[in-house]
């Protein structure tokens, strides 16, 4: 128990020192708040950004709706919704295609050259086309996010299916499994470690792309908010937004990691 507390304390040393130095620099007035606002100012701004704009009124609705009525919760939910929609489209297309390409060499031969050419193009390079094709608003954002999620899921799914040990297929066929059972009950679970890696990477890319897409095409969400704050020289709000983005990213990654751990209980060498 004492060891645990000591470890926790040690892990806080560097962040606390850095914050103290940062606060000291700001208090000394060496840099203008526009270049680098004080951490206390960022914290105050973050709280203002998070807090509801109006006083609680029981007549207007339940308390949790009030609690989430601030600008930040709204931005977070908007961005997460875009990630979810974009990821479901991109991952939803990539998964069956990857399974097919992994399981059928013919399909692989047919599509792999195209995939190899398109894959290295960063989704961000599609921004001009996305705006030309879909205009402004959510559709180009969904397009870019799904594109970002598509390739990691696709490539990992293909690799996963191709890496399925033939002995499992033999054993299943020997026990009387038909093509359909082989596919659903052997190939997909056997490829699951790879598929989940692809999903994790895909969600990560979707998270990067959503911020960029919101800076370009829409006027809501975390990406838009920090760009808007810059126009007003609200550096404290920019940093508050960045911290929020970081926390969301951390939350998503932790969630994915727990999901992976749960789904791969059977697997060797899964990190907790």
């Amino acid at each position, binding site marked *: 128990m004492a060891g645990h507390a000591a470890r926790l304390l040690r892990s806080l040393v560097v962040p606390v020192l850095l914050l103290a130095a940062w606060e000291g620099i700001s208090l000394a007035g060496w840099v203008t708040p526009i270049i680098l606002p004080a951490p206390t100012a960022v914290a105050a701004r973050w709280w203002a950004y998070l807090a509801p704009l109006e006083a609680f009124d029981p007549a207007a609705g339940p308390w949790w709706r009030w609690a989430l009525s601030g600008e930040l919760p709204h931005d977070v939910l908007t961005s997460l919704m875009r990630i979810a929609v974009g990821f479901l489209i991109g991952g939803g297309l990539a998964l069956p295609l990857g399974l097919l390409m992994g399981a059928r060499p013919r399909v692989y031969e047919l599509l792999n050259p195209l995939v190899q050419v398109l894959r290295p193009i960063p989704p961000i390079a599609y921004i001009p086309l996305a705006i030309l094709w879909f205009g402004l608003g959510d559709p180009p954002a969904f397009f870019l996010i799904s594109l970002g999620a598509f390739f990691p899921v696709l490539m990992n799914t293909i690799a996963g299916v191709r890496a399925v040990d033939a*002995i499992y297929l*033999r054993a*299943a066929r*020997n*026990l*009387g499994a038909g093509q359909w059972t082989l596919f659903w009950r*052997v190939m997909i679970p056997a490829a699951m470690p790879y598929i989940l890696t692809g999903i994790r990477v895909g969600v990560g890319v979707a998270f990067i792309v959503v911020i960029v897409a919101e800076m370009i095409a829409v006027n809501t969400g975390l990406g838009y908010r920090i760009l808007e704050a810059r126009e007003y020289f609200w550096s404290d709000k920019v940093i508050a937004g960045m911290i929020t983005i970081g926390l969301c990213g951390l939350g998503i990654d932790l969630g994915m990691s727990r999901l992976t751990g749960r789904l791969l209980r*059977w*697997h060797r060498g899964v990190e907790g």
Partner: protein
Amino acid sequence: MSAPAILARGVRKVFTAGGREVVALDGIDLEVAPGELVCLLGPSGCGKSTLLNAIAGFSLPTGGELTALGKPVTGPGPDRAMVFQEYALFPWMTVERNVAFGLEVAGAAPARIAEVVEGLLRKLGLTEFRDRYPKDLSGGMRQRVAIARVLAIDSPMLLMDEPFGALDALTRRSLQDELLRIWSELKKTIVFVTHGIEESIYLADRVVVMTYRPGTVKRIVPITLPRPRDPSSGEFNALKREITALVMEEQARHQADEVHATAD
């Protein structure tokens, strides 16, 4: 049940490896009676696993005639259940799910599946391990699960490809005894591939000694010792001496071939 469980007539198998043709099996004539326990014995490269895979239908012969239970072998099927040396358990399924797999695939009723699985878990001493995943089991336990998994589909025939080869000597002996117990209880036909001379004499009704490349039947040695057999007995050791001499001739050819291949 006068039809043989397995009937091979002039079975031949040719592989093409690196542009060269390798005759793995040639002129195999073998008849296995229903309920018989036959061991295929020989050094590596003698085609014993190839013959087993041909019977299983994973890799069909290129010539000759091969029937199982009176029907020509055209592909794998649950009437010829295979136990692999590498266990080949599905690592994403618990012990219980692994054992249930064959019955689920066959569309058996859930109540029936539960009953059969329960019985097999008990029979093989796996009840406490039912919710474990294969990665958490020892090699011996995994092979028990693999045996339970094929017994679940109640195949009349078990094909076993060096199933105990990776186990330590004590675990191997206890699984051999377990297999004999199951075999005498369930009257399965078993074809058991091994390179263990003692193992083959301990288990088999007949030991089929195979030649090294091309794989042919060198000699079929009937083992008439009553079970349980005592590996330290005189008769056992006489058989061991006889069979060892046969196998070592082939092992010598195998080694000469390897030396030759290195010299190339």
